[in-house]
Every structure is written in C-alpha cells, then in structure tokens.
C-alpha cells in the first residue's frame, strides 16, 4: 500500500468534513451485504465473481460490495440519464450479459465461469471486452458495450468507497478548512504522503 491506511476514516471523525459529506461516506462504509432483490442468488454470485476480476480486492479486509450496489440500483430502477441505443434496458442487459458470459465459458472452456481458473476467467473477460467471445447471446447483445457499461459501473462503485479512496490517497472530502496549498508538490498537513513509490 503506497498510502497509509485509515486516512479517510480518521478524517470522517473530525470537523474537517461537512455533515452532509460525513453522512454519505459513513453510510457507505457501514453498508453490509444483503441478499439480492433484482438478481437471483446465482446471478449475483456470478456478477460478484466477475467484479472480483474487474477490480481485485484480494488485499482487503472489508470487501466493497460492487455487485450488491448494482443489484440495489436495478431494484430501485435508477438510471444515469442515458444508455446506448444499441443496448436493451439496463436490467435486461445485465441479465442477458451474465448468461452470455456463462455461455462463452462453456463454449470456450467447457465449464461455467465460476469453475474456471482466474487466468481462464481473465482470458474470457478479455474476449468479451473485445467482442470476440463465442455464443448466441452476443448476437443479441453487443459484448463490448456490455463490458464497458459493467466495468464503468463497477469502477464507479469501487472508487466511490472511502476504503478505495484511502488506497489511492484521496482526501478531497476533507474540505472544510479550504485548500490553500494547491500548486505542484504543495500539500496540506491532512493530505497523506505516498510511501515508497
């Protein structure tokens, strides 16, 4: 870890963040996993397995529940204001895309996605991203766009989380004292220093 741990969590206990910010981030920190309400348990497990390859969290003591957040959004039928015209509605795209990945895994490796080694999983996901994965599903759903949307949503969920923000040394939420040292190599005391990079 190039940045020290606990930075954001410590700042949330101080008056350097606004009340509105503290509420949002604390709630996100304390969110625990719940059974899926949009996906079936099987679909959700598969989505989780895929997200673990897209954004590995092997070094985390607390897992950021990307699949759970996607499930919650789709349950609430929330969107982000647009979608590619070539794609079906978000929920349908997810259900179909998950089927497509398992179909491709069977055709390519003779096993379901979750039974594959991590190397095989990565090969398969790479093929989906390049629109080169085998299967009927990808005739109806553009694999590259599905992958792009899934990856973007996964990255959004992951890097919105205080633990991921600690990982990259981001403390922009601690803005109450204002930022006066903003030029190159100018850091405020509350900004973490990278270790060993």
């Amino acid at each position, binding site marked *: 870890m*190039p940045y020290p741990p606990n930075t954001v969590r410590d700042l949330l206990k101080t008056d350097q*963040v*606004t*009340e*509105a*910010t503290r*509420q*949002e*981030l604390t709630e*996100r920190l304390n969110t625990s996993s719940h059974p899926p309400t949009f996906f079936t348990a099987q679909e959700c497990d598969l989505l989780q397995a895929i997200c673990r*390859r*897209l*954004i*590995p969290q092997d070094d985390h003591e607390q897992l950021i529940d990307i699949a759970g957040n996607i499930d919650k959004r789709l349950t609430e*039928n*929330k*969107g*982000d*204001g*647009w*979608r*590619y*015209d*070539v794609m079906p509605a978000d929920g349908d795209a997810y259900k179909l895309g998950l089927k497509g990945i398992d179909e491709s895994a069977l055709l390519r490796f003779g096993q379901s996605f979750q039974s594959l080694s991590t190397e095989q999983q*990565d090969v398969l*996901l790479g093929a989906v*991203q390049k629109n080169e994965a085998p299967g009927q599903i990808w005739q109806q759903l553009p694999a590259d766009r599905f992958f*792009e949307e899934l*990856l*973007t949503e*996964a*990255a*959004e969920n*992951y*890097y*919105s989380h205080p633990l991921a*923000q600690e*990982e*990259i*040394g*981001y403390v*922009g*939420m601690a*803005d109450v004292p*204002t*930022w*006066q040292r*903003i*030029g*190159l*190599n*100018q*850091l405020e005391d509350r*900004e973490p220093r*990278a270790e060993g*990079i």
Partner: protein
Amino acid sequence: MMKTYSTTETVDAVIIGTGAGGAPLLARLAKAGLSVVALEAGTHWNPARDFATDEKSQEKLFWNDERLSAGNDPLPFGSNNSGTGVGGSTLHYTAYTPRAQPDDFQLHTDFGVGVDWPMGFDQIEPYYEEVEQFLGVSGPAVYPWGPARKRSYTLGPLPINGAGQLMERGCKELGIKTSAAANAALSAGYYQEGVGHRPACANRGFCQAGCNIGAKASMDVTYIPLAVHYGAEIRPECFVTQLVKSASGKISEVVYIHNGQEIRQRCRNVFLCAGTIETARLLLLNGLANSSGQVGRNVMAHPGLQIWGEFDEDVRPYKGIPGALISEDTHRPKDHNGGLVDFAGGYLLQSIGVMPVTYMTQMARGRGLWGQALKRAALAYNHVAGINILGDCLPYDHNYLELSDEKDIRGLPKPRIYFTNGENEKRMTAHADKLMRDIWTAAGAKNIWAFSRNAHVIGTCRMGNNPETAVVNANGQSFDIPNLYISDNSTFPSALSVNPALTIMAVALRTADRFLRNAGGNPLSAL
C-alpha cells in the same frame, strides 16, 4: 419572502427551466415589473446542507431520465450535457466562462460551412460584460485573445493549480501563449444588490458536482435570488408536459405535473428554457412551433478530447478551480508545419483537474483498463493532470433528436439523439491530439492517454432569419407562435469554439430586452 401567483390568474410570462437560459431572463422580466413564474423540473437545493463532497451522492444534480444515444459517436448524458434542480446544469458546470470571439458567429462567411448567427458579436458584447460583472467572473487583468475588453474582469484570476502549472510549463516550451482562465467563481468575496454576499472560492475542486458555499456563480445563488428579489415566483418540482394553444394561435396555458397532480397556469407568454434536449422534446411532444421541420435538427456537440498524463510531481488533481489555465492560440490554428489546417473553425485549450470517480470511470470506459492494470493506474491519481479542447462542431443532417417509441418513467417518449462526428470534427480532433500530446510530453508527462468525448449538446431549435430553415428569430421568438420564445443552447445556430454557458446567459438577457422593447415599454398592452 417570495411573491406567489395563483394558477387562476393569467401571469405575464411562464419561464420553463431555471438554468443559464431561464434564470437571467426571469430576473430581467421581473425587474421590468412583469408577473413571472418559473417552472423547474428539479429540486430547490440548499447547497450548504444538501451537497456532500461526494461524487456519487451528487448525481442528483443530473437529468437522470433516460435518453437513448445513437449514431457512431453516441453522446453521454447524465453527468454531462444535462442538469436538473433550480439552477439547471449551472449547478454542476465548471464555471468556465470564456467569451466567444467575433468570428465564431460567422463560420459560414469565413469558411463556407455551417451557418452564421443572425446577430454579431457587437450585439452580444454588452451582455457579456453585464453578465461577467453580475456573476463576479474572475479573470486576468489583460485577456490575450479576441477584441480588447471594454472593462476588465471584476475580480483577479483564481489561483493556478498543479494541472495549470504543468500546462503553462509545456506550452512555454512549445511557444504557445497561455493565460489564467476566466471562471465564474469568486477569487474574493463579492456583494450584489438583490443577491447578497457570496464568499471566495475554497479551491474545493468540486464545481462539476455542485459548489456548497455559493462561490461558484450557479444560477441558484445569482440570477434566481435576483429574480425573486424583483418579484418572480420559482416553482420547483414542476415538470411541464403541455403547452396549450388557444384559437388565437398563441399559447394560453402551461400544463405541468407537481407531486403527481396536473396543474394548469394561464399566461400571456411562454419562455422555453429547458435546454437542447428537453426544449426540443417538449415541442415535438406537443407538435408545436415546427412548420420549418427544424425542431430536433442540427444537434451539435463540442469536440472535447482530453489528454491525460502522469507526472513525477504531486498534483492532487482534486484541488483548485479545475479549468485554471487557457490558451486560445488554436482559435484559428495553423497545421504543425505552420501551414493551413484542413478543417474549419478552431478550438481552445484548457488545463483540467479531476475528481477521483470521474477519472476512474473514464479510465474504465475510455481506456478499457481493468484488473491489476486499472488498480495500478488508479494509484497514480494524485499525480495526474489533463488538458482538453473545446472546438467548434458543424451541424449535419445525420445529427438529430427524435421521439422514440420507448416510454420513460413519466410515461413520455424517451428522446433518441443521433450523433456522429463529421470529417471536420475528426480532423480538428486529430490536430488537437498531436498538439496536446506534444504539450504534455514537453511538460514531463508519462503514460499519456487520450479520452475521446464530445461535450455540451447544442442545437435542435436553430435561430435564424428565415422561417423555413429556423425555429426562432434572432429575438428568440417562434416564427409560428408569436408569444412563444426559446432561450437556451437549443437556439445556437453554430456551436462556437468556447464553453456555452456565458453566451447562453448573454443571449438570454438580449432576448428579454428585445421582448420588453418590442412591447413598447408596456409589455402588457402589446400582448
């Protein structure tokens, strides 16, 4: 106390939308003594209480009803190209407020492509000056491009952050002139009658997700309080569905949904200020003001290529006004050998800071990075800085908005927007790609990468002199319906090579003044 009007009385004007097109005009009409009501689809936020320094929770500022993006270069909406809430998309604009230059308004005269505006820079310049003074635009003492300013910027420039310093360094190496940019965020506390005191910018870098102290000149802390001061009523959470035309051929009533209830407001005039997408959608839904067949046509979006790089220095790109530095040396650029370029128009260059989630999702979407590659690239976040362009975009027949068969959560047809960059935009982008990579290399960047994008959706209700090819005249008045006006980025005949917000506000004030003048000093008698 805000003045209120009853729905049973006939108000002088209903303004639909409270962003850069609606708010200045609303204030102007209210000041003239007219009874005016603004209908806003979104919430009236209290930024100090409601805005967190958290990108995810601030998604509430975006227009999140789904739009369908088609064509070869589908436009993203939501965080880009949309807004909701009292203040519209100014709630999350970057506050970058360069003026257009005189030649921006006559692309057809100069290059034989696109169309000229039905008015020139001289018509808009006084309004630029007025808006800049009122908002408290911070800018350099001398602005190096365009006609000499008659009055200098109200406030000195905002401090330059790391990205700005790096762009300055790279440009200097290549002999490109730079300047502190003009930004509608305060470099010092500012007082305006009817608005009150606004504090200086805290360098929070969160403009694109909502300013929580009122330093950024979004409409909710500038023209909206001014309008209320002069007697305008703001009605938030009112989604307009119908404009009712009477037998006289004028709009007599605006129908909207509030808390699930349908409400009707009688009025003498309507100003449609809902932005490029919703303005055109509402007219198409109602089958209005479209004898030209031009409603929804001519969708344009600025080429907005971003070049990112990693630097040895600590940049911490979340600090400071994101667009601190500008160059307009590329306004009418030369090719890389000093000869003529192979495209019309030009672009500006801007340094950019970035919030973390925005940056990471762009790396996912644009670079396709995932797994350990994404996590490694993300670790460099504190060392990244960007430059981007905003360039002119030509109107094409293949770029337009239509109503789809799919219904949104309100039960209304979703708009489908076709967008494909033409040869001109591709050549301009290729020119800028090379130049910005050169600048970043000269500044010492490593791992340079490009994020392709188009920003600021413009067009759909073109302004012009000919009723057969335009939707509104130079005063923003519909050719078909005399008491219907449009004031927003939908009326821009060409995209201009600058960020649109300042020009939208300036044209809004001009539209208001033209309306008031044509009414002969007594608007009511002429209506």
